[in-house]
């Protein structure tokens, strides 16, 4: 087993860090306080190629691999979890399925502008009654002539409203169960498609999380992604991809919290010395850093296995489960090391703790990840 980055990755890490420190970090607090979507950052992310990292150049991407993409989400996540998820949802959940399952025409029309960052993407799977049980899709798509007619409501959709292109999952034949589910590409502005209520969230408050409402929304039948009945498979494969993104985001949050904490404990004095010189602080941070490093290896392994074309679903599930629970644990313990100041909004650490929680929930809860892992262990 070899541990090492390619020359490109070494240079890119520098770019990611500098971009995150200069363009993203200064906005993080404001986005959180004002629950504001970072429109200006998205424009910069597009300009410097952050929105199409793992896609080939011929489709407008940067020509990188999944590990290189995961590293970008990680670095953004260190300073602003909101910005990290904007990139992750766009790349893994929208551009991803179009790249893996789209026709050449669909890639040309939809993937190219997404990968170039000219358009932003989102993914609509979850419904009020179809969360962890994603097979309970109530949104329907009925073929009528050359068009599918969509009806139903999606909830908790990341990038909603700001995205131009949506990959939407809907039931085409209820009698077939999960085999009656299909995937579609829907453009913003299509008559009958509107954005509903925006959620008021605990964390990642700058990220737009809204309902998608379809009322007799007619889309051309060539906008079906994959074949009729393949939608559930596409959705599950998309979530496998997405989990590496969310795991990278969680890894970034954990690393960012540790960085902030190390800085703080070397400034804060109690009992006549820096609290970082006290053994409890040292042992606690040694523990957290070890945990974060273990998370990193698992996340990177999942990305590398995907890049190598080997089965990685179980690794993506393990990475997301371990990264999410670790990020929550690490940020919570960092707040403890900050003491009273950590509980105030004068320091970013409480925001990081609030942001970390969602990584245990979205794109499959930790419990769903355990189901995936148990299945891989053949515990059926």
């Amino acid at each position, binding site marked *: 087993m070899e541990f090492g980055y390619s020359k490109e990755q070494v*240079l890119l890490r520098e770019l990611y860090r500098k971009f995150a420190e200069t363009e993203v970090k200064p906005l993080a607090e404001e986005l959180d306080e004002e629950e504001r979507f970072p429109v200006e950052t998205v424009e910069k992310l597009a300009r410097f190629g952050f929105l199409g990292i793992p896609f080939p150049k011929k489709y407008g991407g940067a020509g990188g691999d999944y590990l290189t993409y995961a590293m970008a989400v990680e670095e953004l996540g260190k300073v602003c979890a909101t910005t990290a998820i904007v990139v992750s949802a766009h790349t893994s959940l929208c551009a991803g399925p179009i790249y893996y399952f789209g026709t050449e025409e669909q890639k040309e029309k939809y993937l190219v502008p997404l990968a170039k960052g000219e358009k932003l993407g989102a993914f609509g799977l979850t419904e009020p009654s179809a969360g962890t049980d994603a097979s309970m899709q109530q949104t329907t798509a009925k073929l009528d002539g050359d068009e599918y007619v969509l009806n139903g409501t999606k909830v908790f959709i990341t990038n909603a409203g700001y995205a131009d292109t949506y990959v939407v999952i809907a039931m085409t034949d209820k009698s077939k169960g999960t085999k009656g589910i299909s995937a579609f590409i829907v453009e913003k502005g299509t008559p009958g498609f509107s954005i509903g209520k925006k959620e008021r969230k605990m964390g990642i408050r700058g990220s737009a999380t809204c309902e998608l409402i379809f009322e007799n929304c007619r889309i051309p039948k060539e906008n079906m992604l994959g074949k009729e009945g393949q939608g559930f498979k596409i959705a599950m494969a998309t979530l496998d991809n997405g989990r590496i993104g969310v795991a990278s985001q969680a890894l970034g949050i954990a690393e960012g919290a540790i960085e902030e904490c190390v800085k703080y404990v070397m400034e804060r004095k109690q009992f006549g010395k820096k609290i970082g010189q006290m053994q409890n602080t040292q042992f606690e941070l040694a523990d957290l850093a070890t945990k974060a490093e273990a998370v990193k290896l698992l996340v990177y392994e999942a990305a590398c296995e995907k890049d190598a074309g080997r089965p990685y679903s179980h690794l993506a599930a393990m990475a997301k489960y371990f990264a999410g629970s670790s990020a929550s644990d690490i940020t919570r313990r960092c707040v403890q090391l900050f003491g009273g100041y950590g509980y105030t909004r004068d320091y970013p650490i409480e925001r990081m703790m609030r942001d970390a929680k969602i990584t245990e929930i979205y794109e499959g809860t930790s419990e769903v990840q355990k189901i995936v892992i148990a299945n891989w262990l053949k515990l059926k």
Partner: protein
Amino acid sequence: MKIVVCIKQVPDTVEVKIDPKTGTLIRDGVPSIINHDDKTGIEAALTIREKLGGTVTVVSMGPPQADVALREALAMGCDEAVLVSAREFGGSDTYATSGIIAAALKQLDYDLIITGRQAIDGDTAQVGPQIAEKLHLPQVSYVEEVVDAKEDYVVVRRQFEDGYHIVKVKTPCLLTAIAELAEPRYMSVGGVFDAYQKEIRVFGFDLLKDDLELDMIGLKGSPTNVYKSFTKEVKGAGTILNDLTPEQAVEAIVKKLEEKFII
């Protein structure tokens, strides 16, 4: 327009430590970056190319590790890169360095050469102007703005301590860039992958030897002797005395000098 930008890879710190025994910089463990003023030069060149078309070639003299600085410049959008590197060039001071770079530039086609004003590790501000002299080119140093650029001339604003000059200069010419000239762009993600697909040409001693003598380069060809290196002491803010008649001013200055036992 064919633009060449000369860059230097330098240690990434403004607080470079000096080995008190040898008087040289301690570079171990300090990451390397493109010198700030040089990066500004790259940005200015790319901006001119965007307006007029043409190419931007980036040139750096240094050890093989300087490859990373050149890749970064390519990832920012430069078209080609040249590494000027040979054992014979090691230990060169500014005089020898400018001679070697001038020889390298003779191998290239250019209308405009941009260098940074000075490097943060040496702070001499000599190499750019010396290159221009050795190539018999007109030069404008301390450029803070490119006002206009055409194929056969450029109009630039040169910074002075108490003002500025607007200078129109015929191409080919050399400009030295300061931080105010431009805010360097980031590399792009795709640009990094492209950068490693490109070949970096290496100009060694053999290629340049017709324009170089062995006693003009390296340690031997370097007339500079470093007497002592030291960390600058921070000076206090100066005092400005306003609204004084010449007599009062003289009196005030004499009084200050007496206070400090200078006179």
